[in-house]
């Protein structure tokens, strides 16, 4: 396993210290660590366990329980496809199939080249615009199989290929 760099470790210490005296802070800490680092490394779980007087196994149990926490770093571009009911009945499954093909990332996984993570998310609450997707934080409504959304993915794929060729 790769060792975390000093910066990341310091960030974790800061976050843990900030919430230490709060009641039941484990989930708050995990959220902040994931926001900072993009995932929850094992070192963070150990530090959180120590600060909250629980075992690393218990903290790991919390991480595993909640869908939003991940123990693996995400890809460079994160694509979320909403799989809430409204999106599903309007064809979100077809859309996911298409995005898998376009990016090479399987659902809830990261592509082998580390460029794309494809997450099927729970309802985003924008059901009026179903199907709804997010690319790197930007929302796309009415994202059908051929739409602004898939065009944007194609654009990113092309750009990354170009950048890859240059490098």
């Amino acid at each position, binding site marked *: 396993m790769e060792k975390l760099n000093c910066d990341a470790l310091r960030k974790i210490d800061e976050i843990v210290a900030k919430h230490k005296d709060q009641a039941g802070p484990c989930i708050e800490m995990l*959220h902040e660590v994931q926001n900072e680092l993009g995932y929850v490394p094992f070192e963070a779980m150990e530090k959180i366990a120590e600060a909250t007087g629980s075992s690393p196994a218990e903290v790991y149990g919390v991480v595993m329980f909640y869908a939003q926490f991940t123990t693996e770093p995400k890809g460079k571009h994160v694509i979320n496809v909403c799989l809430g009911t409204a999106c599903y009945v309007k064809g979100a499954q077809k859309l996911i199939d298409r995005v898998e093909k376009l990016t090479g990332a399987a659902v809830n996984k990261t592509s082998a080249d580390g460029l794309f993570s494809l997450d099927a998310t729970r309802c985003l609450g*924008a*059901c009026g615009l179903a199907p709804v997707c997010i690319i790197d934080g930007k929302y796309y409504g009415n994202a059908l199989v051929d739409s602004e959304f898939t065009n944007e993915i194609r654009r990113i794929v092309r750009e990354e290929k170009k950048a890859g060729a240059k490098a």
Partner: protein
Amino acid sequence: MKEKITTLKALLAVREAERRYLQLRLEDKFSLEEGEQHKNILVCAGTGCTAGDSAILIKKLNEKLEEAGLAEEVKVVKTGCFGFCQKGPIVAVYPDRVYYTHVKPDDAERIVNDHVIGGHVIKDLQMFDTDRKTGEKVYDIDKIGFYEKQQRIALRNCGRINPENIYEYIGIDGYEALYRVLTEKTPQEVIDIVKASGLRGRGGAGFPTGLKWQFEKDQPGDEKYVICNADEGDPGAFMDRSILEGDPHAILEGMAIMAYAVGAHQGYVYIRAEYPIAVNRLRIAIREAKELGLLGENIFGTGFNFDIEIRLGAGAFVCGEETALIASIMGKRGMPSPKPPFPAVSGVWQKPTSINNVETIANITQIILNGPEWYAAMGMGKSTGTKVFALGGKINNTGLVEIPMGTTLREIIYDIGGGCPEGKKFKAVQTGGPSGGCLTEKELDTPITYENLVAAGSMMGSGGMIVLDEDNCMVDVAKFYMEFICDESCGKCTPCRIGTKRLLEMLTKITEGNGTMEMLDEMEELCNEVRDGALCGLGQTAPNPILSTLRYFRDEYEAHILEKRCPAHVCKKLLTYVINPDKCKCCSLCARNCPADAITGKPGKEVYKIDAEKCIKCGLCITNCKFGAVERH
């Protein structure tokens, strides 16, 4: 440092000052001084419209107004959701009461130049409805079908005020209910008012709110808690998000009233992390309320202390269940625990706790201000007041609608929702999310009450309402929900952990053409066992989507099993793609787009054929064929 509001006089003074500016939006009559050219341009900044670039639109409107030298007279106001998400981004110009739909950032110039300066309504952007009898276009906002039948109480301020400005909330009677309660009523009187209003939990189960509060109040001890459940997990429901985004102070004030009634001094809002805009607005609202002394210590100088903390969920549907939610607030795995003890006896930190849903709390201030009789007069039977539904799926007008209880499903789907798009035939409406069921055409005239929906085989739930048309397969819908439940089952109790898995396996077999008729009976039996044996609400209601579809759409299950056919052409394994030789023009477009090289033929000479063995049923040939020659059987 802002001046704290500690007296009614100070509150009313703030309101008076704010009214002058709010009057353009709220009142029919307003008093402008001669020569004044005041307008408010309201722009929706809910999740839906933000996705449609409404933030950029707001910036552009401000720039254009600045250029025109109108920045003082015309205010651009960022508001919560107007409800009509289908038409977003939505802009409303007051006092003209003109609503614009699908407004893009580039339309800012026209709105300023043509409407504000020129005084002309921009017809091609204006919201309209088509009168179903005469076919004429209706532009009057009060006569538009989507809004006409609604009665907005919980959503009253969404799309009317800036949720990030506490003064606007105070301007429309905000925090008066809290003042009245703290200075004029005893906690028991408050509970009696809520009881008399007949308000019931809007999260789904419909437990009487006043009774819940009474249980907690009757517990001994000083350390008690109140929780606002904003873990809106039902996929397809978004009223709680909308209320928090559009009117966060109504929730803070409602929680403070609730805390006073039950004797709590600390509250938590447990909210999904999937709602970043709502979380942010809530944080702003809490900060503003603390600055003005409307939260914190010695509120209104009465000695009442109350503080609110936000706790984020992390993606677990079961955390909407109250005991699981409490575990999650305490930083643990969100697993439910057996009741009793009920949270009112032993909740967060093992102290008495009352948990209410966002929409329930949003009604509290209005019940206090207008009286319980006013509230109880709305609705039907034991279901008083209004309910918000999130209308989605195959429906023309998607969005949030708030209607008095007792309205029929037909009125919501056809009068408000405008029916199914593209002239497709209505098949079913799903209410109650993964805990609810599907209802058919026959049940559409049922007046909506908690009891009626349960009797029909569904439930109120938090208010998701997904319309399905002839293109949706009911077995597939049941399977979708069962997949969701399997994913979200916490695994603590066996009936839910294993029972739902077995149910999903049977459904999968049926959708793949490997089902048997015995399976239907087995499924029904297992459904009943899971319902009776599961520990919490999630498991107990999980079989509902299967039971209701079996009840109303048994023929579709039978078609999958006996004829190996999916009547709605959804279940992939049961589909075959065929090219109709009479329609094929030999253009080769399908073959060139086929990712599996399953289509052969000769361009311009020989009609194309699909090799069923190779076909992966992706449907690309249908999308690409310009002559409608590809058919699905």
